[in-house]
């Protein structure tokens, strides 16, 4: 624990406001790490408590989003090391996640993406999420994951290739039935979403 002076009330208020603003992002990142929405919220809450307790060691003006993501990620991996049930929970968690996101507005392709993402090795998944969805630069993602920039780059590119392969071949199980057209659904949907520029 770094032994710093406590924040003055004004800095503390700023810190808190920013932390509150980051809650939705931390929840989203936790969801991609855990799969299961309930476990993800527990993880995000723990991370927020940790971030709050460590507020004196945060340097105001630096990237707080990256800092909190790093705390959340470390928390996730330290819990995961303790959890021997993790692998057997994966399948169940994937199914619960699907229920949790059972939103009539949500296109089927999103569920396919979630499942496909769940099949990636964790280090590839987190790299892709940080860079591809979280809006982090490779350098920031490298800081968050505690690895070299080149490592992040190669993980992201391997993750992209793997995802594409999974989505095209329907190489995942859904109620035992592979769906081969996930990629076309995603293509159609992406086209609709991105629209003409």
């Amino acid at each position, binding site marked *: 624990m770094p032994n710093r002076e406590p924040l003055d009330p004004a800095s503390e208020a700023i810190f808190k406001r920013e932390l*509150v603003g980051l809650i939705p992002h931390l929840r989203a990142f936790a969801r991609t790490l855990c799969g299961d929405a309930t476990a993800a919220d527990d993880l995000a809450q723990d991370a927020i408590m940790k971030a*709050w307790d460590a507020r004196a060691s945060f340097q105001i003006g630096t990237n707080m989003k990256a800092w909190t993501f790093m705390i959340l990620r470390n928390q996730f991996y330290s819990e995961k090391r303790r959890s021997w049930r993790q692998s057997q929970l994966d399948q169940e968690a994937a199914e619960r996640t699907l229920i949790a996101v059972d939103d009539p507005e949500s296109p089927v392709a999103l569920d396919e993406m979630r499942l496909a993402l769940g099949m990636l090795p964790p280090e590839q998944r987190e790299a892709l*999420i940080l860079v591809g969805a979280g809006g982090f630069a490779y350098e920031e993602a490298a800081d968050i994951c505690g690895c070299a920039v080149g490592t992040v780059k190669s993980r992201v590119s391997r993750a992209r290739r793997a*995802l594409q392969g999974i989505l095209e071949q329907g190489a995942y199980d859904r109620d035992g039935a592979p769906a081969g057209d996930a990629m076309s659904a*995603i293509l159609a949907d992406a086209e609709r979403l991105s629209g003409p520029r």
Partner: protein
Amino acid sequence: MIDQNDRPLRRASSSDVSEARLRQQAIGVKLRQMFDEVISEPVPEEFLDILRRADSQRSGGED
């Protein structure tokens, strides 16, 4: 709806490359959509309670 997105850059000679890029773009759009979907969910009360508790732990919690 008017869609004039004709992708003029696409050439026969590089169609494989364009196709691959298109697929990767689609994956990117989908990933962000998935992430943004959670971001746009309302924040459960428990989350705000954490920081409210933190406040009362401090002196009196006057903001």
